[in-house]
């Protein structure tokens, strides 16, 4: 396979790499940018563990070629909070026990951020619909919904920037 050059911004940092044309955005994030917080759960666009925000839209990064994201601005879980200073959405997941094994968590955090960034006040049903492209096998979704609900009330995207 012939490599192609792909560049994009991930969490505000420029990333450039020569990659196989088959390379998915997910692989670019994990292998080229060395950001392993974004997970591969199914590689077929069904589980949502690889959800990132690409130019303001939540996308499943296993469903998109790296080449398609050339020139885009991508946000991943590493762009949220830090160990010392969690992002309010991460804080809400921590407080509400919104994660167990943690493998699906990055995807849920990003889809939640994308939902909350829209500035609506989602109720539990809205939240369930927003996250229904993401699978969690541990929690039964209850505490994830509760965490996102609280985050939506406490975290104002504009103020947090």
């Amino acid at each position, binding site marked *: 396979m012939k490599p192609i050059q792909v560049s994009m911004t991930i969490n505000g940092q420029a990333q450039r790499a020569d990659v196989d044309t088959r390379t998915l955005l997910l692989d670019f994030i994990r292998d080229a940018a060395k950001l392993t*917080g974004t997970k591969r759960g199914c590689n077929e666009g069904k589980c949502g563990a690889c959800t990132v925000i690409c130019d303001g839209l939540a996308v499943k990064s296993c469903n998109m070629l790296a080449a398609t994201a050339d020139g885009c601005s991508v946000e991943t879980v590493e762009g949220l909070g830090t160990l010392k200073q969690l992002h309010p959405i991460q804080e809400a997941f921590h*407080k509400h026990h919104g994660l167990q094994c943690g493998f699906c*968590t990055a995807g849920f955090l990003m889809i939640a951020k994308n939902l909350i960034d829209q500035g609506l006040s989602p109720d539990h049903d809205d939240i369930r619909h927003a996250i229904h492209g993401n699978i969690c096998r541990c929690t039964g979704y209850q505490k994830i919904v509760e965490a996102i609900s609280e985050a939506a009330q406490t975290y104002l995207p504009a103020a947090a920037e």
Partner: protein
Amino acid sequence: MGYIGRNIARREDRRLLVGRGRFIADMQFAGMLHARILRSPVAHARIKSVDLSAALALPGVAAAISSADTRSLRRYGSRHTGWPVGDNAVFLEDKVRFVGDEIAAVAAIDEFTARDAVELIEVDYEELPAVVDPEKAMADGAPIVHDELVRAGIIPSNVMATKTLRAGNIEAAAARADVTVSARFYCNRPVCNPLETHGVIALWDEATGELTVWSASQAVNLVRNGLAEVLDIPASKVRVIAPDIGGGFGVKVGLFAHEIIAALLSMKTGRPVRILLDRSEELSSCTSRCAQIRYSEMMLDRDGKILGWRERVVQDQGAYAYSGLSVLQMGSIIGILPYKIDNVLIDTFCVYTNKNSGGAYRAYGVPQTSFARDSLVHMAAKKLGCSAEDIMRRNIVRNEECPKTMSLGQIIDSTGVDQCLEKVVSEVDRLGWRKDPQPYHGVGFSTVLKHSSARHPRMDYDHDSVRVCLSSDGSISVETSACPQGQGMFTTLAQMVADRLGGSLDSVHVTGGDSSGPRGLGTWGARTITITGNALHRACGEARSKIAKVAAHVLEVDESELEIADSIVSVKGGSNRQLSFAEIVGICERHGKRLPKGMEPGPIDVLSSYDSPTSNPNEDGHANPTMTYSGAAHACYLKVDPETGKVTLLGYIMAEDCGVAINPVIVEGQHQGAVAMALGQVLYEGLEYDEAGQLLNSSLRDYYVPLATDIPDLSMVHDCSVPSTRTLFGQRSAGETGNPPPMAAVANALEEATGIRFTEMPITPDKILLALRARENAGGRS
């Protein structure tokens, strides 16, 4: 003191939340190769030849192996069968026994190259007729899955094992019964589907002969022992480490072929080798819930007392034994609880077929039996003109009767299951779910008493170990044999350590998942909270008594005058005479002369083990395979759309007894997760095979896992806990108890909603719609 019972936020969370978890796929080693496994596209075939030459010729390929490389390896898989040889091996006997069985493997410089190389392997198959239906597999003349075991005289046919469980006199019960209900129940074949698929990295050091393996495993010591045996290398030179594990639920227990294959490829190349299974391999080739056909019969008197329980159970084991036999026997012994049934006869048959193998899956056989049990209770209630909960009440074991030995030898030490039942019934009434019955709406109940540790029927051991060691700064390291996969065990165990030892919670550091740590069986079968918990109680107790002894000697008081809290030992009564753990460790390690006479100077470092006082089945199948039993009762409220057959879950109530809840919010999360998984099994999930044994849904596009929009609000969790009298903290398990009841609770609610009894899971909209249409055509209720 006082950490137990508090909602301490999980110490596991922070790194997972910021994307700093370290799963197998996140680990990198210099020179690491990536391997792929060639898997069988057919259900049953003899492999006449495997040609690796084209694969090996592909640039970037480092090694390839097939059965020619594995013939000298020892077979494995006899741990649960007790046979002289196992029924499994890598590329066993040049035969494939199910779609997904391993044929060959390639290691290459990257994943793409490995995938390309696997495509280049040429295989000559001699296809054999497949045996897919377990009842047909039992018939004379059926194709034999393990002909080599039959030839060796180890098994007579595909029926790999039979066992009869009996108590009382079933014939007399049948003669006395006023009402008998029976049905053929089918329990389907879902797969655990943890979000992280199986993965492994093997690193062979030829110079030292050491093999280090990182694996997404719930049981590092079982993998370590298995690898040492299969590869014929000393166990002392094999180390297995489980890093962060992205869910398990049973499917990551025990030795798997990919672990051996990674080790072999590392041995062949001298380089680290990683294998990450993809989702289709996770579905096709790891183990699944043991599918069962249960012909179940319940006999009752006119007052609703259950007189007898008779079953013929055929387990569709699939291609290899794994833990299927244990699932079948334990699930049958425990699954008939919580009802007191004196007369029992259960004939079990475990049958090989050409499918993905049955193995451990959350709650280990109890859901299968529970589905039949409480479906029949509901059916009996219809016949007797009473409610299902009346029959449940009439027969449920009550705490005031405990300790009580039940008819198959199950010892109920204490229980809150009776309270659980009362709680869900009263909650249903309080919420008015049955007040104004709406068409196509229904409420169903189910109960369970489930094991809180699992002594496998053929295993003579059931232990875990904990090492507690204090450092000179007073910090407390706790090494355990636990291998958690998301249960928050390190938080929970830390709370137990802090209370038992008197240490401050922040100073306790708990680890596990490393075979070079303390020995034990790992985290499965709901056993960590009880078995590891009891080992921890012992280890901390011993460390605490040494601390107290030293402190009493140095402070010149009697031990009874001391109190220990937050890592400080002080003299009771407001005195300022005290010693910190750091000071005490300093005295023990560096000032031996200050120690009490006879006490050896040295670290405070205690290793304790705990083996459960449980039993293996006797000839009648009587056993008490678990430390204690956690109980639950659930109520499900749903509606059915008669035009589409779609089920909408309107509400769900859980009442649970997990003994002393160490961390209630974690316990609640476990119940919710267990229920959601079960709702998936009863309504949506399961591997589907066609008549040729071809797997029809090996992708999440075809295999449906419930989403947030399918699962109802699960916030109604009621704690009806009664402390266990057999565990040292009074604890029982929480992770699996929520899994069995949804099966029958949903089926019972569906009968209330439609008047139709569904006995085959998953109960999908097409089945419901067909049943509704069939009744319409027959002139029934429309």
